[in-house]
């Protein structure tokens, strides 16, 4: 094969790959995405962190109570840049699943995440979050130690964190447990990831009064990356290999890395004030459609903002 025809072939291959990716993602139902997002061998936050970083050091503990294995936090380097990473951890096998509580954090996990974020703010490091959790843990100890307060505090603190924050939903984005590390400047979803206020099973049993209706609930809830892009809840979709992220993990890791580098090159040039103003305004305008007569809902917010000592 000569050089010219090799080039032609690779172009054709690339085009076919793009076409099949498009087809696969458009053809995949919400329920198929739910199943893919939960698949045991789906690449984890830990995998992406180690792929993306030149070096990484995990840091443990919330400094109040304990170290939640369902949440990974630490500092990594990417090129010349130090970055703080936060991510849910489900574990790669049954034994790890159990020790990581299937990715469901207790309050300690959210407090550890906040500690990592405040440390990043202090030392002017951007923060990258990888979300992959069925939700916060609905257990006895979680309630005793204030899981509600822990998530609430994160929402408030991340909203005004003075460093860039990027979030990626890499698998399951389960409700408040996902949101607890999901407030940032930009939110991305992997192509087959899902993000919702409740599981389709929960939605089916509560609203449809029939737990076996989870599949149709998944469709009705509009929880896929395409749905959320359309709603402008997420900034963009990160592509996966046609068979799903697990069939070519490095492909997705690379796409994530490129996105991080591109965004940080831009966001790291902004002043902390501008970053926080942009973030608050973005959050404020989520429901802009409620004000058909006055689409600018953030006027008062910006007025208060300029008066605050930030």
């Amino acid at each position, binding site marked *: 094969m000569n050089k010219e025809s090799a080039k032609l072939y690779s172009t054709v291959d690339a085009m076919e790959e793009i076409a099949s990716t498009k087809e696969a993602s458009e053809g995949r139902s919400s329920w198929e995405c739910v199943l893919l997002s939960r698949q045991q061998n789906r690449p984890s936050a830990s995998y992406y962190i180690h792929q993306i970083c030149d070096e990484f050091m995990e840091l443990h503990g919330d400094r109040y109570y304990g170290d939640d294995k369902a949440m990974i936090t630490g500092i990594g380097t990417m090129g010349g840049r130090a970055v703080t990473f936060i991510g849910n951890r489900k574990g790669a096998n049954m034994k790890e699943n159990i020790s990581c509580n299937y990715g469901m954090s207790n309050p300690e996990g959210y407090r550890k995440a906040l500690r990592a974020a405040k440390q990043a703010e202090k030392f002017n490091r951007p923060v990258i979050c990888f979300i992959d959790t069925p939700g916060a843990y609905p257990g006895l100890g979680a309630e005793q130690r204030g899981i509600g307060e822990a*998530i609430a505090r994160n929402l408030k603190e991340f909203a005004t964190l003075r460093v860039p924050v990027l979030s990626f939903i890499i698998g399951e984005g389960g409700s408040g447990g996902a949101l607890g590390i999901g407030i940032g400047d930009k939110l991305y979803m992997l192509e087959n990831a899902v993000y919702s206020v409740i599981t389709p099973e*929960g939605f089916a049993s509560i609203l449809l009064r029939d737990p076996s209706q989870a599949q149709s609930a998944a469709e009705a809830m509009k929880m896929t990356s395409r749905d959320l892009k359309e709603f402008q809840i997420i900034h963009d979709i990160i592509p996966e290999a046609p068979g799903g992220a697990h069939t070519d993990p490095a492909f997705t890791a690379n796409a994530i890395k490129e996105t991080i580098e591109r965004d940080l090159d831009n966001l790291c040039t902004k002043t902390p004030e501008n970053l926080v103003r942009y973030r608050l305004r973005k959050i404020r305008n989520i429901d802009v459609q409620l004000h058909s007569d006055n689409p600018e809902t953030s006027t008062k917010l910006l007025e*208060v903002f300029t008066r605050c000592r930030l």
Partner: protein
Amino acid sequence: MSKQIQCPSCHRVFDYDVVASYMKVCPKCGYHHRLTPAERISSIADGNSFAEFPFTYAFPNPIGLEGYQEKISQSRDKANLEEAVITGECTIDGRPCVVAVMSFDFMGGSMGSVVGEKIAEAMIEGALRHEPVIIFTASGGARMQEGIFSLMQMAKTSAAAALLEKSLTPLFIVLTHPTTGGVTASFAMLGDVNLAEKGALIGFAGPRVIEGTIGEKLPAGFQSAEFQLEKGFIDAIVAREDMKKTLSFLIRVHMGEHSNE
């Protein structure tokens, strides 16, 4: 003859007027009957000082869920409210404040886009005027009929609380029965002072969900206001008859010379 009501706690029957004269607290056992937002406001505001913020919102059905519009219409008739929260301004012992009162009677006080928007607007209005914001919570959590948009209300209200904090304006939360889910995991836990009513259920996961997780019955009083006080998540349990006095004190000590008296 006046209407009679039975206390769900001690099962005694009283004349409605008698219970009403105790701010709907059972004269015998202290059970707190639910107050409507109007009753709640009149229990803390000066005379006719309350003025409601105008309701100007388009009806949201962001995920296009079948039957949701009808559900809203039914709730409006049933609760005689436009949504699950009332917001406005009033004075308490002469001092101005912004107040929001949630209603569990309207779709379980669930937080959809309009509820979140009204609460966020109330907080930003408070920050703008530098007037304390008082929120009475009562909610089963996020309104899942609005899909991901209901989850986003947690972000929106908490971000508004962050702005309120940066503007050094106080936020007082009063947790009433029941407050759970996405409301507990957002602005309801973010007060500078968190108060609660006696016996109120306050938690993140609902009791049945937790029982399902741990496979056993929860101990008595789990997630009650008293439990939250013991665990350190609320500052005080305040009797209904003392609520105005307590809020008045908090406003006075936080607002110093900023009174309109």
